[in-house]
């Protein structure tokens, strides 16, 4: 990877027929940064993220992810990113160990690597006793933590998290963010969408999308200063009120 930018996006647009879901957004994310991607429902943040992951094909614009071109080098991008979707992305009828083995396997990890990662993960998450438990029977918070660890299995340069803490209790959310900090500390760029404003405060920089466009982009401190309010919640509400689109 060349340069200091993990993600660099220019005028990226996605149209579905007449509807412009993402309208010429331009931004960049530095390496090792925790980049928060905020927006009301239907503002276009999930679509933007899906484009960067290669799940959705952009209508126009330019983008480099992990130093590779989104249009021509998507295979190389796939090897260098991790993804945790909004929906729970582990197999419920597989055990934790089997899930790790499967995801490690499709990312091309060797048996030896898979074994040591599994051990490390179980130890780290204090799940040694649950190794043979079907994922189905674990509490949601645990599942999300395992999901995140699985997305990090192949040590991706960038990890995309789509509302990773939806429906999770505050304590687990705090623990989850500790894991995110840890990942960022080790050099992984974290691209995260969220609805929780307290989580927004944890991000290095934030972008707030309204009606498919990025209306604000800065660190939480700067944004609060800029809008002259005390917390992120008010920043968000001020911006989101401008939205003309109704919820999709």
């Amino acid at each position, binding site marked *: 990877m060349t340069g200091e930018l993990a993600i660099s996006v220019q005028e990226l647009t996605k149209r579905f027929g007449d509807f412009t879901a993402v309208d010429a957004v331009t931004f960049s994310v530095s390496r090792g940064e925790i980049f928060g991607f905020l927006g009301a429902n239907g503002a276009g943040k999930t679509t933007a993220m899906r484009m960067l992951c*290669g*799940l959705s094909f952009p209508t126009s614009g330019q983008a480099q992810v992990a130093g590779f071109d989104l249009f021509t080098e998507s295979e190389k991008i796939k090897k260098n990113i991790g993804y945790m979707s909004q*929906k729970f992305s582990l197999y419920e*009828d597989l055990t934790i160990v089997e899930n790790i*083995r499967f995801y490690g*396997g499709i990312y*091309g990890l060797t048996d030896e690597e898979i074994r040591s990662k599994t051990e490390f993960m179980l130890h780290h998450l204090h799940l040694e006793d649950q190794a043979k438990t079907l994922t189905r029977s674990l509490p949601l918070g645990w599942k999300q933590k395992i999901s995140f660890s699985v997305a990090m299995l192949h040590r991706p340069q960038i990890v995309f998290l789509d509302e990773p803490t939806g429906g999770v209790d505050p304590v687990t959310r705090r623990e989850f963010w500790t894991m995110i900090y840890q990942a960022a500390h080790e050099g992984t760029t974290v691209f995260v969408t969220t609805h929780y404003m307290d989580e927004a405060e944890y991000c290095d920089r934030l972008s707030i999308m309204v009606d498919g466009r990025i209306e604000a982009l800065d660190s939480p401190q700067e944004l609060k200063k800029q809008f002259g309010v005390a917390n992120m919640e008010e920043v968000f509400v001020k911006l989101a009120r401008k939205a003309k689109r109704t919820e999709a």
Partner: protein
Amino acid sequence: MKQFLFFVQKEFFHLWRDKRTVWILFGMPVTQILIFGFALTNEVKNARIVVLDNAQDGASRAIIHELSASRYFDILRNLRSPDELERTFQEGKIKMAVVLPAGLENTMLHERTATIQLIADATDPNVAQTLANYATAIIMDYQQRQLGEQTVPYTINTEMRMLYNPQLKESYNFVPGVMAMVLMLVCAMMTSISIVREKEMGTMEVILVSPIVPIRVVIAKMVPYFLLSALNIASILLLSVFVLDVPIRGTLLLLVAECLLFTITALALGLLISSVAESQQVAMLISLMGLFLPTIMLSGFMFPVENMPVPLQIISNLVPAKWFYYIVKNVMIKGLTLEYVWKETLVLVGMTTFFMTVSILKFKTRLE
């Protein structure tokens, strides 16, 4: 390649965790073969009948004797008057009544023609028809012998030979049919459901973000069901040969090859369905309505295609099971070689290639 093996292993885990489904998939063909083989038969034995003998002469007694001697009929009792007839039928104890006219022997001798009435309970038309046929045959037989004693200028006899299936066993007909049904169900329905499940659960997204090549995902999904089908084919053939005495007259190799070809056709169809369906229920409905029903109705296995209205006959050509059914029947029962079924085989190969190509193309575009 290793990625692929990891995927196949995962698919086996899914199957293994869902043992109930595996038992159903594996037990169903066995049960079907046994049910069709022993329970579903048009043959009627020991049907209860009543006789109303208005003649009470030599001829009538002889006919009644013939009827009661046959293993098809049990004469429940002799009625005394026609009034009893309807009541006996209403009681539901009998399937047929034989009414012998007064002065039967006399009429036979002097007028050279006589009529015996067979009254059957046609609420079950097949049984009624079969019983009437049996009774007619017995009476004809009796007549034949009577004629033999007399000197008649000539008689015409028909001599029947039932080729390939002299005992007229139903099993000869349904073994190929059950095979088509089971393969459609196991391969097409289960493959489509297993792919759509990943879409529904959201795991498909994660797979598509990963570097694994989509075509490998598809093939890995098919492997377990392909193996399961191979086992099913083996169990059906073994049961047919050793339990139902259906012979395999053609070469086993050709038969198995044709079965595997049809398995791939069904897998391709399953994949095609999965690219259209967004939920497991939809996938199941499409498989049942779009594949399973036509397989039963239009393959010629339940109802002969020749008797259908022309539009249905044309549509039946689009049903892969029709071709498979034809091939298996000819190879297995008639013992024909590839020389005779290559055209039908080619149709199946063509269909399979078409479905595969379309579904793989569709699968890829979905990613963009």
